[in-house]
C-alpha cells in the first residue's frame, strides 16, 4: 500500500502521501460510524425515555473497564511508535505486544458482556427483548450494531498490529522507516476514539 514515489525523491517512499492516504481512509471510517450516529440521534430524540432505561440495563462496569483498557492501549501504541523513532526496538516490540494483549482483553470483556445479555434473552428477536417497549428494542438493536461493528474494528486493528509486530521483529520497520507502524497506530487510535463516543451514548445514556 505504501509504495509511492515522488519526482523529487524517486528512491524514497513518500511519507506525506501515505499519511494523506491514511487520514482520508480514517475519514471514511468515521463516516461509516457516522451513519449509525445519525440513526442513534434520531431514535434517541424519538424514544428518550426508553433509551434511558436501556442504558440503565447495560453493564456500566464492563463498559468503563473496557474504556480504561482501550485508553491504556492507545498509550502503549503511542509509546511503541516513539520508541521506534528513538531506535529502541525492544521497547517498541514490548509495547506493541502489550497493545495487542489489551485489544484481546477488550474482546474478552465484550464476550462476557454479550454472553450475559444473551443469557437474559436480550438480543435481537430474543424472548426478553421482544417484550420490551419499541424504544428499548431499537436501543438494543443499535447497541448490538454499534458495539458489534466496533468489535470487528478492534479485531481488524489487532490483526494489523500483529502484522506490524512481525515487521518490527524482522527489521522491516526501523527508526528511519516507521511509516507503517505510525499508520497502524493511527488506525488503533481511531478505534479507541470511536469507543470514547460509544461509551456515553450507550452505557451512560441513563
Amino acid at each position, binding site marked *: *500500500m*505504501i*509504495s*509511492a*514515489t*515522488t*519526482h523529487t525523491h524517486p528512491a524514497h517512499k*513518500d511519507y*506525506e*502521501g*501515505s499519511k*494523506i*492516504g491514511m487520514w*482520508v*481512509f480514517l*475519514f*471514511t*471510517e468515521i*463516516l*461509516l*460510524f*457516522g*451513519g*449509525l450516529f*445519525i*440513526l442513534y440521534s*434520531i*431514535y434517541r430524540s*424519538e*424514544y428518550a425515555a426508553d433509551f434511558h432505561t436501556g442504558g440503565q440495563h447495560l453493564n456500566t462496569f464492563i463498559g468503563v473497564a473496557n474504556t480504561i483498557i482501550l485508553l491504556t492501549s492507545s498509550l502503549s501504541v503511542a509509546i511503541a511508535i516513539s520508541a521506534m523513532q528513538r531506535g529502541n526496538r525492544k521497547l517498541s516490540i514490548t509495547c506493541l505486544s502489550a497493545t495487542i494483549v489489551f485489544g484481546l482483553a477488550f474482546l474478552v470483556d465484550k464476550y462476557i458482556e454479550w454472553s450475559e445479555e444473551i443469557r437474559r434473552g436480550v*438480543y*435481537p*428477536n430474543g424472548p426478553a427483548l421482544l417484550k420490551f*417497549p*419499541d*424504544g428499548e*428494542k*431499537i436501543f*438494543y*438493536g*443499535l447497541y*448490538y*450494531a454499534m458495539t*458489534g*461493528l466496533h468489535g470487528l474494528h478492534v479485531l481488524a486493528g489487532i490483526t494489523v498490529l500483529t502484522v506490524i509486530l512481525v515487521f518490527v521483529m524482522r527489521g522491516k520497520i526501523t527508526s528511519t522507516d516507521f511509516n507503517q507502524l505510525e499508520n497502524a497506530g493511527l488506525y488503533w487510535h481511531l478505534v479507541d476514539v470511536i469507543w470514547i463516543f460509544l461509551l456515553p451514548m450507550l452505557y451512560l445514556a441513563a
Partner: protein
Amino acid sequence: MATLAQAAIPEVRSYLDVGRPGILGWITSTDHKRIGVLYLASMMTLFLVAVAIGVLMRIEQLMISKPLFSPETYNAFFTLHGVIMIFLFVLPGLSASFGNFFLPILIGAKDVAFPRLNLTSWYFFITGALLAITALFTGKGFPDTGWTFYVPFSIQTGTNVTLGVFAAFVLGFSSILTGLNFITTVHRLRAPGMGWHRMPLFVWALYATAWIQVLATPILGITFLLVMVERIFGIGIFDPAKGGDPVLYQHLFWMYSHPAVYIMIVPAMGAITEIIPTFAHRTIFGYKAIAYSSLAIAAVGSLVWGHHMFTSGMGDPADVIFSLLTFLVAVPSAIKVFNWTATLYKGSIELRPPMIFALTFIFLFAIGGLTGIIQGALNVNVHLHDTYWIVGHFHYVMFGGTGMGFFAALLYWFPKMFGKKYNEKVATIAWFPIFIGFNMFYATMLVLGYMGMPRRYFTHLPQYHTAHVIASIGAFIMVSGLILLLGNLLVALFKGKRAEQNPWGGVTLEWQIPTPPPLENFEVVPTITTRPYIFNPEVSR
C-alpha cells in the same frame, strides 16, 4: 505547454509490450494503465450484459398479451439491470477506466500514489461483480427489489438480497480506495510547475469525484450492512414492527446515492472538457469556473438527497429545503454547459467522432438536467414520482450524459491507449442510430410517465401500448448503433492501423508521449510552464 525533451524516441517499448505475458501480466500488474484497461474491459463486458437485459425488458413490454417471462423474473431483471449499470458500469465509470489510465499522465506522473492499492481496488471490483453473479444463481434468485433495496420489502422478500447488498458493499471498497488513491495522487505527484490552476480539467473533475467517493460511500456501506444485519438477526432498526423507521433507510440510502450520481456524471463532464477544446482548436473558456463548479457540484450535490423522498412523508419544511437546494445544484452544472458552448464560439470546429459524441453529451445532458428541474418542483413531483418520467430523466442524465461521455472519451483516447486507429466513418455512422434511437426511446418514456405509466411494472394498460411500442423500437435502433460502435472498436483493436502520437492535435500531456505510452509514461519528467489548452502560443498569452 510543457518543455519535453523532444528526443523523438522512435522505438520505445510501450506498456503493452513489457511485463509478464498473457492474462497474468494483466491481473498482477500494478501499472495504472493496465489497471485502467482491466477496468475498461470488465466494465464493458458487464455493460453489454445489462444492455441485453434491458432489451429483454423492452421485448416483454411489446408482448403484454403473451408475456415472455413471469412478473418475478421481470422484477429480478430490472434489479439486475440497475445493479449492473449503476454499481458496475457508471459508478466506477470514467474514473476507474480513463481516470486510472490518464490521471497520472495528465499531471506528469509515473503512476498513482498507491499502485498496489490500485490493483487491490480492481480485485474488490471484480469480487463484487462475482458476488452479484453468485446472487443470481443461488438461493431464491436475484433480488427483486430494484437497485434501491428499499425496506421494508428488502428485509421481507425471500430473494437473495443479503448477498446482493453485500456485493454492493464490496464494490464500495473499490470505489473508496480509488478515490483515496486519486486524492493523494493529485496532492503529491503533480509534475514540477503544475500548480492547481495548470491541471487539465479532467483532473479537476476526477479530484472532485474522488472526494465524493470517499465521503459518501461509507454511508452506503453502513446502510447496506444494516440491511444485512436486519435480514440475518432482525435488529429492528428499519422494522416498523419493532419501532424502527423505514423512511430513515431512504434517508441513509440517498445520502449516498444522490452524491453517487455526481460520482457518475462529473468525470464524464471532465472528459468532455478535454475533448471540446481539442476539436474546437481553441483554449477552454472559463477554466476556473469549470474547475470550481466541479467542486461546487460535489458540495451542493451532497445536500439534495431528500428530493428522492418528496412523497415519503418526511415533512413540509424538509421538502421545501430539499427542493430549493435541488434548484441550486443546477447552477454549477449550467455553468459548465455555458462554458463549453462559449468555448465553441469562434472555434474552428472539427466534427470527428469524439467531438460528435461530446456534443451529443451536451444536448442530452441538457434535456436530462432540465427534466430534473421539473421533477424537483414539489407539486409536479407528486404526479411524476415513481413513473416512467423518472426513468426517462435518469437515462437522459446517466446514459445520455455519462454513457455518451464515456463513448466520447473512449473514441478520444482509444488510439492513445491501444495504439490503434479505428474507422472514423463507421463510428460516425453508428452515431445516427444511437442518437435517433435514444431519443425515440427515452423521450417516449418521459411522455409515458407524464401520462401516468408507473415504473417497474412488467405489463401496462392498453392506452400506453402505442407509446411502449415506439419506445421499444427506439431501444432496438439504439442498441444496433451501440453494437456497430463497439464492434468497430473491437475490430480496430485487432486489425486497426498504427495510430500516431497525436491524432487529434491535442495539447495536454498525454499527446506528447509515444503511442501507446511507455511503462513509465515519461522519459524525462516534464516541467510545466503554462496553463493547459494553449493551442496557439503566439495569440493566447
